[in-house]
């Protein structure tokens, strides 16, 4: 019995072992199947990322993006885009007779030199550029030659539909489609890495008007160049920026002559100039802000100031005591210098720094220059800087600062990118000073040196500036930089319009004068009268009592109004 039992138990043992093994094996298999099952459910039902993305990529044509995104103006007008073009290359291994092939090719593309092509086609290797960016017609004709050694590669080419109109702002790209100047260069990453279109603050209609008027004036006064800016005083946006002569961005690097370099030079941001009397805007603002002078203060402008061997005199000397508004409207250097001495060097320096006239501009262009100012700021510097000599800033610097003076005293960083809401600026002068300055600026156009800038209904205000260009050992009397900075409408400023001419020559119509009031001011007036309706500004009844009251100057204004002559 025991034996049998033991036998049985041995059998059972073996069975048990087998069963356990089976169970373990089965469990493993079951677990494996479970994993597969779970994964199956996961993949088919829950997870819709991987496979379905693949499916959708296959079902919809993926938008093939160009390597560089577009550049647009504020209204969406195309300023720069990329197009596919064919580029011709040769495969010398497939060319049997380089000479014949070269002759045939030059027959189709006459701008190529036969010898050069022959030499290229005789070289070793399988790839050599023959001509990049050819037209579809040329491509067809090359294909018709029937040489297997001529092949094409699709390339991208930057196209600027508006040509030279905004060339200084938009810039251009090099042969390998990399931005070399302007927005093309400063927004390289946005355009190529993120593929985002760049919308500028420029309005191409305004740009065209400014360009047209400025070039007409340059021709009229035989100037060697000029520049102009339209600037929104509420947002800091640059609405238009023109620098003449300009260039065709498609022909950028063809020639590297002096002339081509001069055309590529951006006068509005890269050029720094002594702007002359335009600086009296800042001088007066500082004097009124610090209380060094009031509107009814008077200064002795009877005789020129002599200091450190220099003589400061007036262009159109009144030779009498002048009130602060008169110093502004007659553009008296003597009066301005005396006002500057009243508040002193340190104050002048601080305010000019606050107004952004001592540092680089915030504009998004690589082509920009730092202002030039004296390292040793003496009393003489203070006096000359008061009327805009001895300090050189770019026109954009001046425009940005003038916008701060008239918009209530807030300095807004200048930008070329459309802003949908105004940025937070820094207060540089008080609202009261700003209001007084608006009145003074209006007075200049109403009765002073800037009358040629008037545009009926738009309450233009502004300041002329005429500076002699520095030359060897002093200033050149005949080479002038004539500017006008205008603001409109003066009761509630919206835009600053600046025009500047480089070396205008006096003509009969201007009685031989080539000053800012005769050359640059008319440009501003014409531009404002055409641009204001486009920008949605309705004309104002200038005689309306509330407008008159808003721009009235209590002190001495009547006296200034009574006379009103002066050229600059």
């Amino acid at each position, binding site marked *: 019995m025991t034996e049998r039992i033991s036998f049985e138990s041995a059998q059972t043992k073996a069975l048990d072992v087998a069963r356990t093994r089976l169970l373990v094996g089965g469990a493993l298999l079951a677990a494996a199947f479970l994993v597969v099952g779970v994964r199956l459910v996961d993949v088919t039902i829950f997870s819709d990322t991987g496979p379905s993305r693949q499916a959708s990529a296959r079902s919809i044509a993926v938008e093939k993006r160009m390597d560089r995104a577009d550049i647009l103006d504020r209204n969406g007008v*195309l300023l720069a885009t990329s197009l596919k073009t064919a580029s011709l290359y040769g495969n010398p291994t497939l060319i049997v007779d380089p000479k014949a092939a070269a002759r045939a090719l030059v027959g189709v593309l006459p701008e190529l030199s036969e010898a050069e092509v022959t030499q290229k086609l005789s070289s070793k290797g399988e790839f050599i550029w023959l001509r990049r960016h050819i037209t579809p017609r040329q491509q067809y004709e090359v294909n018709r030659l029937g040489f297997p050694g001529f092949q094409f590669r699709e390339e991208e080419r930057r196209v600027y539909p508006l040509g030279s109109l905004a060339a200084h702002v938009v810039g251009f790209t090099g042969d390998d489609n990399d931005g070399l100047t302007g927005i093309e260069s400063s927004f390289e990453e946005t355009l190529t890495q993120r593929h985002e279109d760049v919308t500028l603050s420029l309005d191409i209609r305004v740009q065209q008007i400014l360009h047209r008027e400025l070039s007409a004036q340059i021709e009229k006064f035989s100037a060697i160049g000029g520049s102009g800016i339209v600037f929104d005083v509420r947002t800091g946006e640059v609405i238009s920026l023109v620098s003449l002569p300009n260039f065709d961005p498609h022909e950028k690097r063809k020639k590297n002559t002096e002339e081509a370099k001069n055309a590529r030079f951006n006068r509005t941001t890269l050029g720094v100039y002594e702007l002359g009397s335009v600086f009296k805007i800042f001088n007066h603002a500082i004097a009124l802000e610090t209380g060094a002078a009031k509107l009814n203060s008077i200064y002795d402008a009877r005789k020129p100031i002599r200091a450190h061997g220099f003589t400061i005199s007036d262009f159109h000397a009144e030779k009498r005591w002048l009130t602060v508004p008169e110093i502004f409207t007659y553009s008296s250097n003597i009066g301005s210098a005396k006002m500057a001495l009243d508040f002193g060097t340190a104050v002048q320096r601080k305010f000019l720094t606050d107004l952004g006239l001592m540092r680089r501009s915030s504009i998004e262009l690589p082509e920009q220059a730092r202002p030039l100012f004296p390292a040793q700021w003496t009393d003489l510097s203070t006096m000359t800087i008061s009327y805009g000599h001895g300090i050189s800033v770019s026109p954009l610097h001046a425009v940005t600062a003038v916008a701060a003076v008239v918009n209530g005293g807030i300095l807004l960083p200048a930008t070329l990118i459309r802003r949908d809401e105004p940025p937070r600026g820094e207060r540089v002068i008080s609202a009261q000073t700003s209001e007084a300055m608006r009145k003074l600026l209006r007075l200049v156009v109403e009765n002073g040196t800037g009358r040629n800038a008037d545009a009926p209904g738009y309450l233009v205000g502004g300041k002329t500036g005429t500076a002699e260009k520095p030359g060897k050992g002093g200033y050149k009397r005949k080479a002038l930089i004539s500017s006008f900075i205008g603001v409109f409408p003066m009761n509630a400023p919206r835009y600053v319009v600046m025009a500047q001419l480089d070396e205008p020559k006096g003509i009969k119509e201007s009685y031989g004068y080539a000053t800012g009031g005769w050359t640059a001011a008319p440009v501003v007036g014409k531009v404002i009268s055409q641009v204001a309706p*486009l920008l949605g500004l*309705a004309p104002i009844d200038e005689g309306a009592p509330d407008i008159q009251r808003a721009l009235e100057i209590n002190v001495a204004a009547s006296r200034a109004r009574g006379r009103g002559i002066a050229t600059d």
Partner: protein
Amino acid sequence: MKRPATLILFALAVIAGGVLFTIAFEVSTLEDRLSVLNEQITEDRDAIHVLRAEWGYLNQPERLDGLSQRYLELQPLDGSQLSDIAALPARPTPAPSTDPAPTNTPSATTSPAIVALSETESPSVETPIAAALAAKPKLKPAAPRRPSRHVRLASQNTSPKATSGAASSDKEALDAALRAIFGNSARNSGDASR
């Protein structure tokens, strides 16, 4: 018992195979079509891109300036041409009219376009615009009564300017033109709907 089951299974297998084949065939046709369409889309996109650039090129302000100076008698907008609603004088009360009250039917809304057509005497480019302007208020469902009045006013305003004097004879001419164009249907449809 065994044979029918085998037969059924065999039939099912054949059907399944056939269906599979058809579907596979269909899918491959669709995929071919898809790739053709994708290619077309890409081509069209490229073409649109090129056309946009060309549109920009043709719209160069300088070029438009030249064209407008050569072909149009338009001048740059002047500030004095702008005004706002508040500056307009009050609307004069419409003179009592002997005509039956204006209806809201097509006859009332289409007539100004015809007025413009017949009174300018030459079929000018402006006519479609005038028609569009006249038709536009009709699209507004909120105020169904008002459009007809606007339109009537518009036609009243334009007629004295263009006819200048011989109003009655022109009116007859207009009626004749209307009859000629619509064969009385314009008038009739207006009456019928009322």
